[in-house]
């Protein structure tokens, strides 16, 4: 929508330029969606435009990935197929596409929406928060004096729409360590509607050195991390107890995208599915349990839609052939 209170769009990436009434403009999909009255008691006056900062969207280092805050979701989605990362032995990259697909917004929004913008919006269901928290990403934040600080993304998001950024601070980038990318990963997600807003999103990581790490997002107001040392992997019971202890009832998010009681039980369920998948425990028939969408039964690859599409007869699972007939 029009932000009619905006008096100027200033191309800058320097926090020293930030004044009261300013907002950082990355993709703009949040600012222009909620409007200039939605971000504080007073309307926004200026947009500080990051699009000319010239930050490379993705930089691949031997010790990990650096995603600029202005990296678009479309650029991120393309990354797993790019030569820059092929052959690096980073199974963690398999999380990228399911996380992108966890946006309720379609691919068109991805063309402008950014990684940093999603993290800074700090919604419980923010898929970039899920991805980055799940892969131990660390954010680099620039302050007003130009000083930078780092903070784990899992700690940057502190609640439903709240984060640890001070006014005017600028998220510059997130770094995903190679160690996290090198681990085996698993992903689970549930939504109340097909391809809809995440109600529960869990990411698991198994590393021979660090052990099993679980990151809970969407169902909780902020990311919750659980980790279990490599030498004592949890069984189902221990995992359930740990989930129960780590997430008090009031930390479960309560909005129209899922009742807290459902989110709690689904968090436990998905956590157990991930535990079993990563620890190699199979069901009697040899399969792994996969609830929800965007993850295939083998725990590998990217099932774009586990939900059967019933709109096209050829793609439908059990849906009827269209018939339109008149009984004689």
């Amino acid at each position, binding site marked *: 929508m029009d932000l009619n*209170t905006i008096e100027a769009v200033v191309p800058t990436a320097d926090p020293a330029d930030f004044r009261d009434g300013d907002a950082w*403009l990355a993709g703009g999909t949040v600012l222009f969606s909620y409007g200039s009255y939605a971000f504080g008691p007073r309307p926004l006056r200026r947009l500080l435009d990051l699009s000319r900062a010239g930050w490379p969207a993705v930089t691949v280092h031997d010790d990990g990935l650096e995603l600029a805050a202005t990296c678009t979701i479309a650029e991120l989605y393309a990354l797993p197929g790019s030569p820059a990362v092929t052959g690096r032995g980073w199974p963690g990259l398999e999380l990228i596409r399911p996380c992108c697909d966890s946006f309720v917004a379609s691919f068109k929004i991805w063309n*402008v929406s950014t990684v940093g913008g999603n993290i800074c919006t700090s919604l419980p269901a923010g898929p970039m928060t899920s991805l980055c928290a799940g892969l131990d990403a660390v954010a680099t934040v620039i302050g007003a004096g130009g000083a930078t600080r780092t903070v784990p993304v899992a700690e940057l998001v502190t609640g439903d729409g709240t984060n640890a950024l001070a006014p005017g601070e600028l998220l510059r980038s997130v770094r995903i360590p190679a160690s996290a990318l090198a681990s085996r990963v698993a992903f689970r997600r549930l939504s109340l509607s097909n391809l809809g807003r995440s109600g529960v999103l869990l990411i698991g990581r198994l590393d021979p050195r660090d052990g099993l790490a679980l990151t809970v997002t969407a169902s909780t107001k902020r990311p919750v991390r659980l980790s279990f040392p490599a030498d004592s992997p949890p069984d189902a019971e221990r995992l359930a107890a740990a989930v129960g202890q780590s997430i008090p009832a009031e930390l479960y998010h309560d909005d129209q995208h899922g009742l807290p009681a459902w989110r709690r039980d689904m968090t436990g369920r998905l956590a157990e599915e991930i535990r079993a998948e990563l620890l190699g425990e199979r069901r009697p028939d040899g399969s792994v349990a996969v609830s929800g969408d965007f993850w295939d039964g083998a725990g590998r690859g990217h099932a*774009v839609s586990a939900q059967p599409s*019933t709109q096209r007869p050829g793609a439908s699972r059990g849906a*009827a*052939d269209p018939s339109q007939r008149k009984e004689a």
Partner: protein
Amino acid sequence: MAIEINGTPAAGEPRPGQCLRTFVREQGNFGVKKGCDAGDCGACTVHVDGTPVHSCLFPAVRADGTAVTTIEGLGAATDNGDGLHPVQEQFLAEQGFQCGFCTAGMMMTASALDEEQKANLPRSLKGNLCRCTGYRSIADAVGAEPHGAADEAAESVRDGCPGRLGDDVPAPAGNAVVTGAARYTLDVPPEELPGLLHLKVLRSAHARARIRSIDASAALAIPGVVAVLTHEDAPAQLFSTAQHEIHTDDPDDTRVLDDVVRFAGQRVAAVVAESVAAAEAGARAVVVDYELLEPVLTPGDALRPGAPAIHGDKDAEASRIARPERNVVAEVHSELGDVDAGLAAADVIHEKTYRTQRVQHVALETHAAIAWLEPASGAGPDGGDRLVVRSSTQVPFLAKRTLARIFGLSEERVRVLTGRVGGGFGGKQEVLTEDLVALAALKLGRPVQLELTRTEQFAATTTRHPFEIRLKAGASRDGSLTALQLDVTTDAGAYGNHSPGVMFHGCGESLAVYNCANKRVDAQAVYTNTVPSGAFRGYGLSQMIFAIESAVDELAAGIGMDPLEFRARNMVRPGDDMLSTQPEPEEDVRYGSYGLDQCISLVRDALGRGAERLRAAGLDDLGPEWVAGTGTALSMIDTVPPRGHYSHTRLRLRPDGGYDAAVGTAEFGNGTTTVHAQLAATALGTAASRVAVRQSDTDLVDHDTGAFGSTGTVVAGQATLLAAQELARRIRAAAAAVNGAAEEDCVLEADAVVCAGTRRLPLAEVYDAAARLGVDLAAEGRWGGTPRSVAFNVHGFRVAVNTGTGELRILQSVQAADAGVVVNPRQCRGQIEGGIAQALGAALYEEVRIDDAGRVTTDILRQYHVPSFADVPRSEVCFADTNDELGPLGAKSMSESPFNPVAPALANAIRNATGVRFGELPIARDRIYLGLKEKAAAEAHGNAATEPARAGQPSR
């Protein structure tokens, strides 16, 4: 700044905070629509350097140096003769639209899809919402599915005149819709409205308050602000925003601007300014001193003794409010037979409270209106200017009456017209914008425009009435329904618009469809300090049918009978009195035709075939945690609302031998324009394409009650048919006179009259000959909407439920409809598919939520999930073979009613699959899971017998 739009450099520069959507519209590209202005609906999709984006989220300044393509430029890149992009051709060929408001964005998205994306439309199109079609025709357009045999047969040309009764005639506006040229309410070039002002509404944040004072001085000091209008400027006349043929059907309880606030979101002041930005700033600067009062947010609280009377200042008789001192808008209490005796005679009794939620229409075009004054050319005795209002309305003629009444004008001094209307669903059977722009235009003498935001739609327009239905019903083991007792409370919200009608209608056909000697109804509509409820597709029936059809399913289970068999035993058949709350049937409702029995059979057979298909495909077992089941529900609807629904059509032969039809009813995707052309073409022996239909302008015809109550075909169409039949007689007579033939020997053909089998007189010559004799070959038709018939729908679902997560999959969806003779099968199928999709939203996802202070919290589309492409299954649609004696050429209405049986059929299927009865909508996945968990816990405690055992097997 250099922005190129469709190959042409844009004039002017965008404002700093402007989004690309409004910028390209300012440059004249009206095909770019606003559905949400927040990135959710996709109606504003454009390409920036070839990349599809939502232009409402795209900072216009960032388009500097880019080439922007809008729907107006999409066809330019392709050189195939017709100037249309292949996607546009496909949408036209498949008629992948109804109201057309989402269509440009849909096509801009579809045209950018690669093959991989096309193979996964649920994912690729989830960013484009359509509220009308249910996505099937869109899938066919994007996927360019080959036509089925039925389609091909229907499209065969008969008699060289395609487009008569029973043909799949495409919508006349199709080309305009797919090219973005169709003009909706606000698609008016600025040069046509010089001096246009913009109005923004300051709305109350409080659910109940008295306004002590309003200080507009700061607002008036803002540059560009022209006026601030408050209750002091508003007429004292009370009215209802609801629009009916008889205005006394609704309580007079509303003012244009009031000094009492009754819901959060109510209008407090209107700020009129030279720009939207100035009006917004002005609205922020108005200072209101409220005396805050404790709100009453639920019917239960409102009915409590001593509760504040929300309209306690009104006179019951003058305002037609049943009991204003007790917050009761309307009530009905009735008993047919002896319900207590009927319950005593029952072998099985089902007793449960059912609840339905607030649901929003979410027509893609928000409410909007423009008012201006035009010089009255001999317009009436009182002289002066004439008020003209262009509005997004289903009821232009009723809006005209209401405006005349509010502002004390003669009806001749008011004209209301529409452009193409971007969806209605009942939400536009109200006056919610027209009165404000009229007030401002009358006061300021300049054109004034008001466009509601999507958030205003949610927070401050109308919703479906929430119903609480305490139901008790009994059945005997022989399969008889012995008693039906209903205690109904509906939540009117803050104003009584439509509340009496919705309550009465809801308690009408839902009960009348069953023969049951003992029926008791106690119903009341209750004021609360919440967003007003209003007309919504189904008009009370969907809520009541949810409860009754759920109960019928439980009773069938209780006596161990197939639910469809139980329905078939108890449903009315021709000759049976249709009774609900009165001992005598409605005197003008008849069985003009009857196809309910066929609908039951069609659904039963289709479900049987579906089961067979699943088995054959090895898909009948989804895995250990999945349970499956089937469910059905039926519904009946009177084909016309009661107490008069009037239409008037003028039809004339043009000098070129074509026909002009002027009709009153509005086109908002319901397809009635096509139906009018087809009915006229059939009577005139010509092709639908030779009948040009103009509509929805109070200057065109005398009167039209409006496009609601599913009347576009059966009332307005009947008027057109009568006009066409009369005109055909006159043309034959004229030709006979010219030819010296007998009138009965003259036959109308597409463009000529053939007399005595040989002499062929082109219609243009007939026109000339008649003109020389001073004969005007024109005719009028009128219809008053009575007597009325009944139409039927039966829905069947096969579902699977994941007991571990609550996930619901619809494996099969089938609806059988008794629409009489189907004038346009493709279009009628589209109405049914759209009704199913909208009903799935209400059944599974949608809920307007209100917080403890009475404020709507689900005020953007991300918080209010309407079904996306990914959510809607492809439904089978079957038609009963009937021919109505009352409807035009045997047709019956079919626009609201497909909605009505869907939610209970789904609830019944879920019950069949899981054993759990869900009595509250929406039945979302989280609630399914928790319901199953609760049942398991109860069973673990050994007291599982709270619900009747599922003795009967589902229908096959």
